[in-house]
């Protein structure tokens, strides 16, 4: 029978990870990290944004790519969900639409690793109620 994990187990993990964290903090500066925002509104969630976000986090970690993946609100591209906004340090943000796991992997392999944009970019030319 598997032992159920508890806070005591978490404390053991904490001490193991603690020393590794110090090295990681010294080399990381948020402005120098790749940032990915995943739109997590009703339209996005219904279209699979949760799985896209979890996949991005795990795949980037698996490939050893330092990136910050966060959720954000509706970006207004409900017709193209799931959408992500990718910001590579020193470059303007780029919004991709219809980002399922396959597209997410393509974005990682080509845009993030090779700096080659892929199909599916949404031009940022919308207007909101506020700025009409």
């Amino acid at each position, binding site marked *: 029978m598997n032992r159920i994990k508890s806070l005591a187990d978490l404390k053991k993990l*904490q001490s193991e*990870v603690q020393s590794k964290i110090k090295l990681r903090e010294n080399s990381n500066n948020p402005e120098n990290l790749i940032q990915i925002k995943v739109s*997590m509104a*009703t339209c996005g969630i219904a279209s699979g944004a949760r799985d896209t976000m979890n996949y991005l986090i795990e795949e980037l970690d698996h490939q050893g790519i330092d990136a910050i993946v*966060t959720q954000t609100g509706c970006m207004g591209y409900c017709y193209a969900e799931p959408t992500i906004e990718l910001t590579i340090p020193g470059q303007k943000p780029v919004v991709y639409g219809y980002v399922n796991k396959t597209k997410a992997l393509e974005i990682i392999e080509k845009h993030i690793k090779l700096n080659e944009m892929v199909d599916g970019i949404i031009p940022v030319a919308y207007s909101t109620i506020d700025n009409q």
Partner: protein
Amino acid sequence: MKDLSLHILDIVQNSIRAKAKLIGIEITELPKENHLIITITDDGTGMSPEQLKSAIDPFYTSRTTRKVGLGLSLFKQNAEMTGGTFSLESELGKGTKVTATFGLNHLDRPVMGDLVGTLLLLICSSEAIDYVFKHQTPSGEFVLYTREIKQTLENVPLNHPEVRSFLKEMLHENLEQIQISE
């Protein structure tokens, strides 16, 4: 929404947008009463009585990027379709409470889905928000306080890959023991 875990994720986004610092997610499964109750509470900005009346209207939203707000109305519709009920309470400056009761055995009740995936995404994506997750069934109860987890981790972030992996396993193992809905 395909499953209830996505509804939970969706409603919690409202709490996050309302600048909540403490969000409670409670799931109660009562086979004898044929009830599955999902309650989400927050200490966010809350709503005025006028906003509260309109909140369930799918054509009402506080967003500016679009003109519809479907989350609460879809959640309500799904609950009522299974013979259940829906209630929304809120007070400006204090917070909001959403309660949906589903017919546990009703044919139209969506499955629970990937609850672990939803909880992991919520817990690990924002250090600034505390969650209290409680799941009760006749088989037992599982309660998780992210405040306790953060205290145990000290300065190790929640989104550290090994912490994520640990939390994923912990949630799976504990929920497997008690969860009834698939």
